[in-house]
């Protein structure tokens, strides 16, 4: 057993300094809020510069009928390039990010995003290709997409893929429409989709948009699907079940084979929510577990950065019997060439396609990042990702099991759910307060109050890219926070954290009550 104290490397003189995980950024000055672009604006300023075109300067009147012309240009903002740069650079300094420190946000898989992928996404040969260019001008892109489709099929154990969905939720809805199309093609349209109570919110929301009714099954005491409860809701009205495995508690659904049999038995399909795929890369494949449809969150598992909330990419892979329903057009290799040279690609729409789900071909530059990530890791590397993600999560789970409650005290996969219930009972300090204290300690907070099945949940996903030193620094911070909560003053302080962040706790109620969604609606 490693004593955290023992981890100090001889080269290091001050043990507390050695944890790179703490984003010790620092205030560089004025304590005012950053003004908005609109407040920085002065009439007559400008930043833009455009190419000299020498196109004849026809007057506006000759170009547009009056009824179509606006009275005055739209008031955007009027700033110099210098002020634009100052403004957004300062804003960036008010923003936590993976590049600044650990971001153990459960379910979100905030791992390090290799910089090489940024380089790929800005290659002119990829970034400047028009999506409507004829296939003769986009063979490289089509090859890239086919290569990615094949890799995702290999990883998930499926037969065909669509890369169009722009995020996980879009993938879910696409998957549900595939499910619907399949049942309809069987001449057996169905009405319901089963999901566990621990499911992510997008699942039930997608079920509704897919035209299905949600049937929720409770988890059992071990945090997994209750097989009996599941059997009791299964019948021929059920189109299928949506599961993520490991589930949102970070636990592997051990009965998955039985679950799959039960669902298939009533003619239902199994949908795999791939948001947690990071845990099982190269270890086990959804296809082998019995799933028929899988979506992948490339922005989670394949390290295409989240961008403050997007863009993502949510490709869907399916088993052979569903491939002909996939969205189109899909890129297809019509001639493999010799050693890849002289290969030729075409667009094709599957026979019974449900239709398009994106304006073009999906979030292509995100897809290019993901392929790069996959190729660098390869078969061995992806498995290593899973191994280390699971190792980190278990280490942290055990390390923190004395600090917080551990409602499911057994080995987890890539994330673990702890609870602040006892802490709250003892001191009044809630999971939310712990989260805010962690911000002040230099870490992003874990996900809190999700999954809904755990009270005062703290859902921690360290990911494989954080070091043991960072995990220990994070755990020590948790220890300190809990220890401080032991005194009434300490507890009171915790409920007032954070203190040194760009702003302190914000009044969310006021934001909703007197809504100010734009600068122009300010009083």
């Amino acid at each position, binding site marked *: 057993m490693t004593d955290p104290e023992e981890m100090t490397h001889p080269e290091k003189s001050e043990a507390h300094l050695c944890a790179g995980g703490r984003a010790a950024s620092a205030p560089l000055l004025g304590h005012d809020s950053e003004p908005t672009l609109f407040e920085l604006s002065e009439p007559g300023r400008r930043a*833009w510069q455009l*190419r000299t*075109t*020498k*196109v004849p300067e026809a007057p506006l009147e000759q170009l547009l009928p009056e009824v*179509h*012309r606006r009275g005055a240009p739209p008031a*955007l*903002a*009027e700033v110099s390039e210098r002020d634009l*740069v100052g403004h*957004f650079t300062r*804003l960036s300094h*008010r*923003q936590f*990010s993976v*590049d600044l420190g650990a971001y153990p946000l459960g379910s979100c898989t*905030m791992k390090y*995003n290799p910089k090489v992928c940024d380089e790929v996404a800005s290659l002119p040969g*990829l970034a400047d290709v*028009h999506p409507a260019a004829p296939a*003769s*001008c986009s063979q490289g892109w089509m090859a890239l997409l086919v290569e990615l489709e094949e890799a995702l099929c290999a*990883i998930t154990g499926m037969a065909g893929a669509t890369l169009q969905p*722009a*995020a996980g939720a*879009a993938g879910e809805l696409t998957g*549900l*429409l595939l499910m619907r*199309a399949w049942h309809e093609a069987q001449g057996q349209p169905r009405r319901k989709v089963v999901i566990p109570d621990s499911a992510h919110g997008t699942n*039930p*929301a*997608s079920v509704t948009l897919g035209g299905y009714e949600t049937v929720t099954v409770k988890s059992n005491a071990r945090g997994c699907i209750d097989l009996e409860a599941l059997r009791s809701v299964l019948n021929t009205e059920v189109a299928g079940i949506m599961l993520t495995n490991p589930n949102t508690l970070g636990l592997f659904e051990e009965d998955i084979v039985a679950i799959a049999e039960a669902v298939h038995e009533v003619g239902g399909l199994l949908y795999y929510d791939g948001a947690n795929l990071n845990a099982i890369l190269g270890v086990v*494949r959804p296809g082998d577990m019995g799933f028929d449809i899988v979506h992948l969150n490339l922005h989670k598992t394949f390290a295409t*950065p989240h961008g*403050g*909330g997007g863009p993502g990419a949510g490709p869907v892979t399916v088993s052979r019997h569903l491939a002909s329903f996939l969205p189109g057009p899909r890129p297809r290799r019509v001639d493999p060439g010799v050693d890849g040279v002289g290969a030729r690609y075409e667009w094709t729409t599957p026979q019974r396609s449900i*239709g398009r*789900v*994106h*304006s073009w071909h999906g*979030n*292509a530059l995100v897809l290019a990042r993901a*392929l790069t990530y996959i190729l660098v890791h*390869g*078969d061995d*590397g992806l498995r290593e990702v899973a*191994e280390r993600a699971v190792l980190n999560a278990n280490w942290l789970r055990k*390390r923190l099991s004395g600090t917080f409650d551990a409602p499911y005290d057994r080995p987890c*996969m890539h994330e673990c759910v702890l609870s602040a219930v006892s802490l709250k009972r003892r001191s009044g300090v809630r999971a939310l307060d712990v989260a805010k204290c962690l911000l002040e300690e230099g870490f992003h907070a874990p996900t809190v109050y999700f999954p809904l099945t755990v009270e005062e949940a703290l859902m921690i996903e360290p990911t494989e890219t954080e*070091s*043991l030193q960072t995990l220990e620094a994070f755990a020590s911070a948790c220890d300190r926070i809990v220890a401080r909560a032991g005194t009434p003053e300490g507890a009171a302080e915790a409920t007032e954290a*954070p203190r040194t962040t760009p*702003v302190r706790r*914000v*009044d*969310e109620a006021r*934001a909703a009550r007197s809504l100010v969604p*734009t600068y*122009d609606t300010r009083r």
Partner: protein
Amino acid sequence: MGGYTPHTKSEIASMLGFLGLSSVEELFAAVPPALRLAGGTGLTPGAPEPDVLAHIYDLAATNRPVGRDLVCFAGGGAYDREVPAVTRALASRSEFVTSYTPYQPEVAQGVLQALFEFQTLVARLAGVEVANASLYDGAAALVEATNLALNATGRELVWLSQGVNPSWRSVLQTFAAGTGHVVVEIPLVAGSTHWSSVVPGGPVAQGGAPGVVVVAYPNYLGCLEDLGEARALCDRTGALLVVAFDPICAGLLRSPGDWGADVVVGEGQPLGMPLGFGGPYLGLFACRSTHVRRMPGRLVGETVDVDGRRAYVTTLRAREQDIRREKATSNVCTNQTLMAVTAAIQMGWLGTSGIAEVALRSARGAHYCRKALLAVPGVEPLVSAPIMSEFALRLPLGADVLIERLADKGFLAGISLDDTYTDARRDGLLVAVTERRTRAEIDSFVDSFTKALR
């Protein structure tokens, strides 16, 4: 496999020891052994970054990006617009790129304020009160807009102008399979939606009252339709008016809000995003404030912190999937935040005068180019409605053939129109001109065009 994970052998050993395990394999004890992959996924082994980069360069080299060697006259919702170094530099700051959805506002004011500014700018362009923090793309925004409208009106019928981008119409049809919405497409005549085909008592109108009327401005053929007609139709039928606009054209055009739109959607790619083979782009969504509680997706609002300092936070969260689950207004979670931040930067760079100038230059270029192409023997206008910066031609041969011929000469000539707009001859070509096209480029395009038709 690279240096992204930090684990040393001895650390792995000590961590396993701490867990009382003797091998990494034991971490996966919960996975039924029969399911475990014995022989791997079949992917190739990991390769060092430079090798992978070399492979990606090889692929990229078989593309033909737009630029000097392929001058772009294609649009159709994706435009070759000026993106300055400053937009790229700011939008690629790693704090914006590598952060998550702003769930902890205290450490996410950067993204939140940028989104607040984005919402303001989009609302101003659209001419309505409120905009959300982005959706996936123009098509997704359109789907969400019809969902909102049908939700608001309690109806299920969509009257959809065929002037709307064909891909978006296709996406709308795809998702209607789930929602059960009924989409009726209204054809164009001479470039404008033939609203008189839905006069009361006519065959379309017999299908019931629409919950939403959808029209594009400019439409897919580049034409400027009379939105007054669409508005009147909505007033008459009780439908909401959804207008698909182009944010750059809005620099010159009357805003959809001013025309009376209830919901305004658009493709935000022209606001600073590269063509990128179609993504990631940016779904713009704005609406009247009456509909704000039905809005899809994230919304940032201004508020204060406990010290009374101005602060921003995502708000009206009760609409969203993580709170409302099956009753949410939409299933969207991850959106296109980085693109919204990019667009805010680009709109800041353009500013009031710049967006008008870009729109004006595009219009000038398009009119100049159109006139010259129409002088080419055999080329005719496809439709007659007024255009702004994109226009449709009828060619004396299949458009795909011409596009290939001109690609050989260094031009991406445009987009071939599908048979909604032409007949089986597929002789319709959609040409877009942006502020980046010089007179010399246009002249030489016209020259090659003329030769290619000989």
